[in-house]
């Protein structure tokens, strides 16, 4: 199959006129209006349905959302004018929908507390709004600081150290905290943060940089073992490291989802970089062996699998989350109850891990499918960016970022809808949680940068020192 990989790279979009006008990005602006409009209307609907009046400071919030979208549009138009015009609006739409649902669940929590005479709990939506602002700021920072994606290649091993460092941070005594049995959080100055979300970006950068340097060796140099062509032992190093990293995450942080995410990401990048199916086979075998061992070795893994197979065996105990989620989804049906008119707060962790079932209940199958299509569009634009990138490093980074987004959506949505065993992962842009939100805005920043540099009609900046062959043709 590797021969077909030799197909010519897609020609960079040739601009007939060298001094073409900078794109006005009208499509992006129009889509942003749509995205912000949907979120603002959902926001209004939640309060109208629950309290019978518009949210307090509704017009201020609407203006803020419109202002943020306009600012982002202006910044992208300035800093990455040739980049994909769909990425930003889609991210805004999902982030806005998430804020709406979190606000709606805040209302439910306040109402339920008032009915019981309890103190109204602290609202999550304002915090999420602050994180959104921070996420946008990081998006701007990525666009401002990374003027060319190949700059990142210089930081290949720095990224490895940073990524691994972030991963083990929750294990540091006094810094890491255990929440719901998983030690994946750090708490600094009262703010909790999940470093793995940012670590995944660093590790994608490392792997892309590493594979750019080593992919020929990994693809070509083979030995035969039991009649099958396998890579040489020393080339197996990186995948073993990857496997060990995910095992580390699994064992010490009991974070099933992130462990699976890292492992699948590394296998996918190896396959994409080398074109060797044997990596997929080896990865699958290692995955099966690892999961089997995990099933027998760890009680919490066994519980998750048992709940997946028999969710109604213990609906009040271990199966409670999944069954409540399924009830909510079923209650939503095709059209949903409407925002503010269902009972999504019956599902535990409805604002974070189970926000998908809140969307499915109140917006129905229709709304949930639309949301999944938004994610699919985001991933598709990411993969398209990868295909269009002018260098292997950019391709691998874009591909890794897009794939990790797709996989994360699959793992969390599949878990919440009981397609696969439930593992705790945040839904990108949607779920409450600052680390995931800012990490994903940084992902959008990188994708915009790669996309911009591949479509930029003018001569690319002078190539940076490269440790490996690239196909970048300076023009």
């Amino acid at each position, binding site marked *: 199959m590797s021969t077909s990989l030799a197909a010519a790279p897609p020609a960079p979009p040739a601009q007939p006129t060298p001094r073409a006008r900078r794109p006005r990005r009208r499509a992006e602006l129009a889509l942003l209006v749509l995205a912000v409009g949907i979120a603002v209307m959902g926001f209004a609907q939640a309060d109208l349905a629950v309290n019978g009046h518009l949210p307090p400071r509704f017009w201020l919030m609407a203006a803020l959302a419109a202002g943020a979208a306009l600012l982002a549009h202006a910044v992208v138009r300035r800093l990455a004018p040739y980049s994909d015009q769909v990425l930003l609006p889609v991210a805004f739409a999902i982030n806005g929908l998430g804020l709406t649902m979190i606000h709606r669940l805040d209302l439910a929590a306040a109402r339920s507390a008032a009915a019981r005479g309890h103190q109204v709990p602290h609202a999550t939506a304002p915090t999420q709004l602050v994180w959104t602002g921070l996420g946008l700021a990081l998006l701007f920072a990525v666009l401002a600081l990374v003027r060319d994606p190949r700059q990142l290649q210089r930081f290949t091993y720095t990224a490895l150290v940073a990524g691994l460092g972030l991963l083990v941070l929750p294990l540091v005594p006094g810094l890491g905290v255990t929440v719901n049995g998983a030690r994946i959080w750090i708490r600094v100055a009262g703010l909790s943060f999940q470093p793995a979300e940012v670590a995944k970006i660093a590790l994608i950068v490392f792997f892309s940089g590493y594979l750019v340097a080593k992919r020929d060796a990994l693809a070509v140099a083979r030995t035969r073992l039991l009649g099958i062509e396998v890579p040489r032992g020393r080339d197996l190093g990186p995948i073993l490291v990857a496997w060990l990293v995910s095992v580390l995450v699994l064992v010490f942080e009991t974070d099933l989802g992130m462990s699976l995410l890292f492992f699948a990401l590394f296998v996918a990048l190896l396959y994409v970089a080398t074109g060797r199916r044997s990596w997929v086979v080896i990865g699958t075998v290692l995955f099966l062996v690892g999961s089997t061992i995990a099933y027998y070795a760890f009680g919490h893994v066994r519980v998750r699998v048992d709940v997946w197979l028999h969710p109604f065996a213990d609906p009040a105990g271990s199966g409670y989350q999944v069954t409540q989620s399924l*009830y909510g989804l079923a209650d939503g049906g095709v059209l949903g109850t409407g925002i503010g008119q269902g009972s999504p707060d019956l599902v535990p962790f409805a604002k974070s891990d189970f926000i998908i079932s809140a969307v499915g209940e109140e917006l129905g199958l229709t709304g949930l499918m639309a949301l999944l299509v938004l994610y699919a569009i985001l991933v598709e634009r990411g993969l398209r960016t990868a295909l269009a990138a002018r260098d292997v490093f950019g*391709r691998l980074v874009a591909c890794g970022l897009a794939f990790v987004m797709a996989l994360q959506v*699959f793992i969390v949505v599949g878990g919440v809808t009981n397609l696969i065993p439930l593992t705790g992962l945040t839904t990108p842009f949607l779920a409450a949680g600052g680390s995931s939100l800012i990490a994903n805005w940084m992902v959008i920043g990188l994708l915009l940068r790669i996309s911009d540099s591949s479509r930029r009609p003018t001569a690319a900046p002078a190539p940076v020192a490269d440790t490996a062959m690239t196909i970048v043709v300076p023009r």
Partner: protein
Amino acid sequence: MIGSLAGTIRRLSIFVALLFLALLVNINLVQVTRASGLATQPGNSRILIKEYARQRGPILVDGSSVAVSVTSSGRLKFQRIYPQAGLFVSATGFYSLIYGRTGIERIEDPVLSGTDPRLSLQQISDLIAGRPTRGGSVILTINARAQLAAAEGMRGKVGAVVAIQPSTGAILALVQSPTFDPNQLAVNDVSAEQAAWSRLIADPAQPLLNRPLARVYPPGSTFKLVTLTAALASGKYDLTTPIPSPASIHLPGSTAILPNDNGRQCGNGHVTLAVALAVSCNTAFANVGLALGGDALLAQAQLFGFNSSFQVPMTAATSRFPAGLDPAQTALSAIGQFDVRSTALQMAMVAAAIANRGVVNSPYLVQQVLGPDLAPLETTPVRPFGVAMSPLVAAEVTAMMVGVVDFGTGTNAQIPGVQVAGKTGTAQTAPGQPADAWFVSFAPAAGGDVAVAVVVEGAPHDGQISGGRLAAPVAKAVMKAILNK
């Protein structure tokens, strides 16, 4: 040179597309194919939330609500309220978050909740107009004044009262004592409802028991009305036939003795049926029963509704008259002992049939069912169950029952200016246990606007005194309430 990665990225894209496809197919399965199965999965509290999100229709008595849904501040939008607490609970039943529903709340649930197919047009128009779907109303046959009079009369006593309109079978009063406040099971608070439920379950007086419909009692001497009807219908007896009435009789085929309540013979040893009924002479009726035979008594009892099941619309307990009796059992059954068992409802039906010139009407509790727009959906028709006796026999029995109230054991039921027909009873329950005091009556004797059966548990064994002393005043109060006296 290993190429541009385009091929592998495309294949990875196909894999990613398959992941999304799997998610989309799966949510279609969950939200469409499996949705109804998940919705009815036991333990799915969303069913209740949905149910409580609709305004349930009221249950009405004489134009006012005895069960009504009001808005609530909690997760459940509506709460069921019973404004008169326990007064109508034998009819309404309760509507509880965790203990389900009983009585009319259960039987008429489709109408009250608005899910009845007859309301589907209404639901569609509500959907189009954006109105919340509401339930329909149920109007009961209960007469509020009679119900209140019966409940007042039973205060402090244990037992049941049933009043029936003889010409239709409509139930005018349905009272259990002790009763309970259904509001405490409808508070929409799981722990409060659980606490109330365990209190009610632990109460030895069994307040949750629907005594007028669900409990069978030995009818005792009130059953003599059935034996009397059988005697007159048989043609073997007329108003003057002398019946042997010694102080006691030897039960054939056994060593047992059946005495009169006061241990003395009735009259001078032979009495007419009228006198036998007025003084409730056990030996005379035992002799009548022996002369007629068990099969004749069984046939007559079944004409009144014994051994049949009645839906009022709640299914009442079946009153029993056993078949295949030997002579000793026949003698005891003729005076409502041995294995004869009757609900208060059944004895009210006996009185109502006599008052209605022999025609037994099936008893019913629901007058009319209305849609949410107050348009009538259904009116319960009068359904004759059968003919228990000829009008002539009915007139003769009535005259003898008037004698019971005028100068016999039932004088406590006299109402000035109204001729009352009645019969007392004090039934043995089990050896060493207190008796059940009965009074069965109707008024006025001509026309019969209301027939009542009252049973009071825990009465002393004092012949007919308890029936007259404990039960008759309650029956009198109910009849007065209906007759506006």
